[in-house]
């Protein structure tokens, strides 16, 4: 699967942030959202760019660490796929 990502980049708490476009190709459909960000970070590091900082810990919907606002909604864990609003995006 191919995706165009518009990701919020902000250097630190004081600097101004902006959306940056990234293109990703050949992503497996069984990849989770966080794994997709890992793949993107790997590519960024190989290109000598600053990787994207994001929160994550258990990656299975227990700890509540991962937090992303995806397409205008708070997206959360893969554990909650039975629940429609959060199923909007699977992390």
């Amino acid at each position: 699967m191919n995706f165009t990502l518009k990701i919020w980049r902000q250097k630190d708490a004081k600097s101004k942030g902006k959306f940056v476009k990234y293109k990703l190709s050949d992503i497996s459909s069984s990849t989770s959202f966080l794994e997709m960000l890992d793949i993107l970070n790997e590519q960024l590091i190989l290109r000598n760019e600053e990787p994207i900082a994001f929160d994550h810990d258990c990656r299975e919907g227990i700890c509540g660490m991962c937090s992303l606002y995806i397409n205008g909604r708070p997206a959360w864990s893969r554990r909650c796929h039975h629940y429609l609003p959060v199923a909007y995006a699977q992390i």
Partner: protein
Amino acid sequence: MRKFKDGATIVVEPWRARAFPVIKDLIVDRTAFDSIIQSGGYISVNTGSTPDSNATPIPKYKADFAMDAAACIGCGACVAACKNASAMLFVSAKVSHLALLPQGLPEAMERVQNMVDTMDKLGFGNCTNTYACEAECPKLVKITNIARLNREFITAKICAHKIQFLSRELRPLEIFLIFGKNLFLSYLYAIQAGYWSGKC
């Protein structure tokens, strides 16, 4: 990623709320939630070793309510979903799961006031019943907890006033004269819900 269409454009942002400042890129500082828990999410007793399982009888429905509220993991989705950046679903879950159980009752009044004060101080907004938090909560915490928080809070305010300034219970007429119609109705509701006799 199968939830997305192939070739889709996905916009990814951090949580947006005044109380959750961005640290870097998609990471926000959720220390505010820790501060709220520190201000009241505990009971001040040395619990000792494991007690007998039925030493403190608790009705099943209350145990269920408390357990549902305790499911909150403090992820902050409720704040991010709320147009007011209100943390009331989070605070109400923490207040509820302690206030519903006998172990949490002795400190219930101070707890709810401290936690709400901290919440206000940290810059969270107020609840306007849009239900966005309930819709996004990954642990399915119900908005009825916010109703319970409001009841707890108003009862605590009335009772704390009583304890602070008078050494006796206020009579209904006095409550009406001092606090006005709205708080008087809340007081009546509190009596009816059993809050008065149980806690004050």
